[in-house]
């Protein structure tokens, strides 16, 4: 098999996940896109490991070991991430990352409870984008 096939598929999946991370508004959908990016990296690791274990006769299987580590770390990351999202949802009543602007620099009045005043900037951003 040409190495270009898994490499190109991995690049496509990574950029799909990149689009999802940048464009999604729900925090859980952003976590799903992060999973897509991690899986793209895993595919690259496995493909290059299979190639190197034949061509260079590399017996460490570092690519597959790193893939297993990445899968484990992704499982830990999704657990922690969902716990954080649920804590934010319990405190704020929303999981939209566009509304969590408490630490953002703003020109007008800022406060912890400005759900009503965050809607106009979002609409403005949509109109300009």
């Amino acid at each position, binding site marked *: 098999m*040409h190495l270009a096939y898994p490499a190109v*598929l991995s690049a496509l999946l990574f950029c799909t996940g990149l689009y999802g991370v940048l*464009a999604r508004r729900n925090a859980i959908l952003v*976590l799903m896109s992060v999973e897509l990016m991690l*899986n793209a990296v895993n*595919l690259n690791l496995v493909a290059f*490991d299979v190639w190197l274990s034949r061509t260079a006769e590399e017996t460490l299987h570092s690519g597959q*070991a790193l893939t297993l580590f990445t899968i484990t770390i992704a499982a830990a990351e999704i657990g922690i991430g969902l716990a954080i999202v*649920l804590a934010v949802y319990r405190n704020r009543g929303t999981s939209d990352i*566009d509304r969590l602007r408490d630490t953002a620099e703003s020109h007008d009045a800022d406060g912890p409870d400005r759900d009503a005043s965050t809607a106009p900037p979002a609409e403005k951003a949509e109109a300009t984008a």
Partner: protein
Amino acid sequence: MTLAAAAATAHATTTSAAEAHGFLSPTGVEIAFLLVGLVTFGAALVTVTTRQLVHAALWLVVTLGGLAIEYLLLTAEFIAWVQVLIYVGSVVVLLLFGLMLTKAPIGRSPDADSGNRWAALTVAVAAAATLIWVVVDAFRTTWIDLDGPAAGSTKATGESLFQNWVLPFEGLSVLLLAALVGAIVLSRQAKATATEPGAPSEREPR
């Protein structure tokens, strides 16, 4: 001198092996990889573009399952089954639980995409074009020899994992324990602060 000669011969064999297998006459494994890859990529696209949140999680199952088939085609059996077990079995279930617990809307939600969608699309397409150009230019003539014993069988993976990677493996188990404790602590703190303001009235029904 001998190193250079060996590198030259190795380069010659790889290029000849790759040139013997052109892109216009794909093997059966390549055709299967291409078809499954198309399904995987399409499911990934639907995952990041659909407006129904639960459907996104279900299309993510298709993507991850397709990737498991790609691992099988690359003769990495153990990774494929770990992918099915952990990703399809637990991560997607966790994501679905998260969607349920944050009261995600079942139908179409109009605000699933944020306002910077076109900027994100531009960045993603530019990154995809750059990455594919670089990758194809670099590995156009590289050939993976998939014949012979599987490179990622359970035996090979286990031997490498428990001979060369024991210390990172044990460290990873500590990390998993830390993540588990961290998730529990995060959930408990959230519950304590949520019940603190109206503690007496909320505790009475229990």
